[in-house]
């Protein structure tokens, strides 16, 4: 392992970190714009052309707001909560294959920070820690609304993780690998997993909404009942971290959906274009971001279309509908694989 390699990995990680942050920043603006358009409004358009400086203004506002900590709060955990949430939100981006590889002077540079052979497991592990950031924040606030919100978040995320894992297990069974780059490479061209796993995709996307605490599963925040839920007592940039992490999660979830079901950086007729490897990689990177943007839009579209579920409906759907369906999907996938191998 030479210095060059470390430098390149470090640069790649920094670039992806910055991209994640900038995307999340502008996702707030796009969300407000989209919300406005869905409601026959225009959305923010005063700060710069099309409101392009709105996220900067919002960020600045969050920095200048009073930093308030409740007197009865646990100081260490109170700060740990949002920090953990932010860190975990950013961690997943390490294993996502953002593109194929670039070749300079005969040296291949992969556009994936860490091509670990248990990429899918890594994503699950990080997702499972995600609940701690919210739980710790809600607990440390010493506020009953925050606590209820945190408990809701915990139960919701744990419940939907099951169905989500089951949905992905079908993919893993199909592709026979846990490495994300391998899964993407198997979906070369238009051979996307969505054609083989439509049910799995629906299950996965529903669970992804629940994992991100996005509407219609935004019960942990639930302004009407819980006045903000787990981040009721948070202000200033600590609140900003929670809100920001939500958008990063959305971005990463969209990237995961695109990676697992929509071929990642693969696009139809990529072999017929006759382009060089590097050009294909760059186009693939752009295509991947178009896919991510589309799913980001779907996240917003769903938020501004569907009302929030009731808590019992949420739990019933997670345990009684999604989990059995995911199990059935696993069984069907297994049967088809067995029949294929047999013949």
């Amino acid at each position: 392992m030479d210095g060059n390699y470390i430098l390149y990995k470090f640069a790649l990680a920094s670039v992806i970190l910055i991209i994640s942050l900038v995307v999340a920043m502008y996702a707030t603006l796009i969300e407000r714009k989209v919300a406005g358009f869905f409601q026959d409004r225009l959305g923010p358009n005063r700060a710069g052309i099309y409101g392009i400086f709105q996220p900067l203004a919002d960020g600045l506002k969050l920095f200048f707001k009073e930093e308030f900590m409740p007197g009865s709060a646990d100081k260490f955990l109170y700060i740990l909560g949002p920090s953990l949430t932010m860190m975990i939100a950013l961690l997943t981006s390490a294993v996502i294959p953002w593109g194929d590889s670039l070749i300079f002077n005969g040296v291949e540079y992969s556009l994936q920070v860490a091509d670990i052979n248990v990429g899918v497991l890594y994503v699950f592990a990080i997702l499972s820690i995600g609940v701690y950031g919210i739980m710790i924040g809600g607990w440390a606030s010493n506020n009953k609304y925050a606590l209820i919100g945190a408990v809701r978040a915990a139960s919701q995320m744990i419940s939907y993780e099951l169905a989500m894992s089951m949905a992905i297990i079908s993919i893993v069974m199909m592709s026979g690998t846990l490495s994300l780059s391998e899964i993407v490479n198997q979906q070369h061209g238009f051979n996307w997993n969505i054609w083989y796993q439509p049910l799995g995709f629906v299950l996965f996307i529903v669970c992804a909404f629940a994992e991100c605490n996005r509407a219609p599963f935004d019960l942990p925040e639930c302004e009407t009942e819980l006045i903000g839920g787990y981040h009721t007592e948070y202000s200033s940039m600590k609140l900003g971290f929670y809100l920001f992490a939500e958008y990063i999660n959305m971005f990463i979830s969209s990237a995961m959906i695109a990676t697992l079901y929509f071929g990642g950086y693969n696009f139809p007729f990529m072999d017929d274009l006759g382009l060089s490897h590097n050009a294909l990689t760059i186009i693939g990177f752009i295509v991947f971001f178009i896919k991510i943007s589309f799913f980001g839009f779907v996240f917003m579209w769903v938020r501004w279309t569907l009302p929030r579920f009731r808590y019992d409906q949420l739990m019933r759907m997670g345990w009684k509908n999604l989990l059995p369906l995911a199990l059935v999907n696993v069984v069907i996938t297994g049967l088809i694989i067995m029949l294929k191998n047999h013949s």
Partner: protein
Amino acid sequence: MSTNQQPGLLTNRSKVVSDKKMTFMERIYFPAIIKGFGITFSHFFKKKATIQYPEVKRPIAQIYRGKHVLKRDDEGRERCTACGLCALACPAEAITMVAAERKPDEKHLYREEKYAAVYEINNLRCIFCGLCEEACPKEAIFLTSRIVSADYKRTDFISGKDVLVEPVDQRIDISSRQTPAVLNFKKDKNQSHNI
């Protein structure tokens, strides 16, 4: 009125509530969700209802009742004689005034022998009903189509004579409110207010 309307109902848009069992298609949510997506997506391209306020303004009525003006006569003298009828007529008690006697060398400033030394309207109390204008026997106070602007302090909403009296060189047009019909009505001896 349409004929197929049920008696006792104002519109025929009300629906009868039922608690029938949902069919399978209804229970799996997805058809309804897709339909909802269609509805929201169609709104995405609809004409926006937003009016870009400071640049674009909504059309207002000809006889809009906004910020008050204290008129001067043709020679530039204040018409108000501080009779107090406007303050009396005001249902919100928004008008206060202090009367003073005109000095001989002030004949070019005030039309009548008595004038309002202080004349204040509290715009937060005012309900813009226009009764002051109706009560005024000297045609001195009028409501205009100008809008009372926002401000930071409550005291800033109390307009004195510096705001209310129209400048000599920038007369404010009130012809849309002071039509001949209005003038005739005010002077009509058959009306109870003139008996």
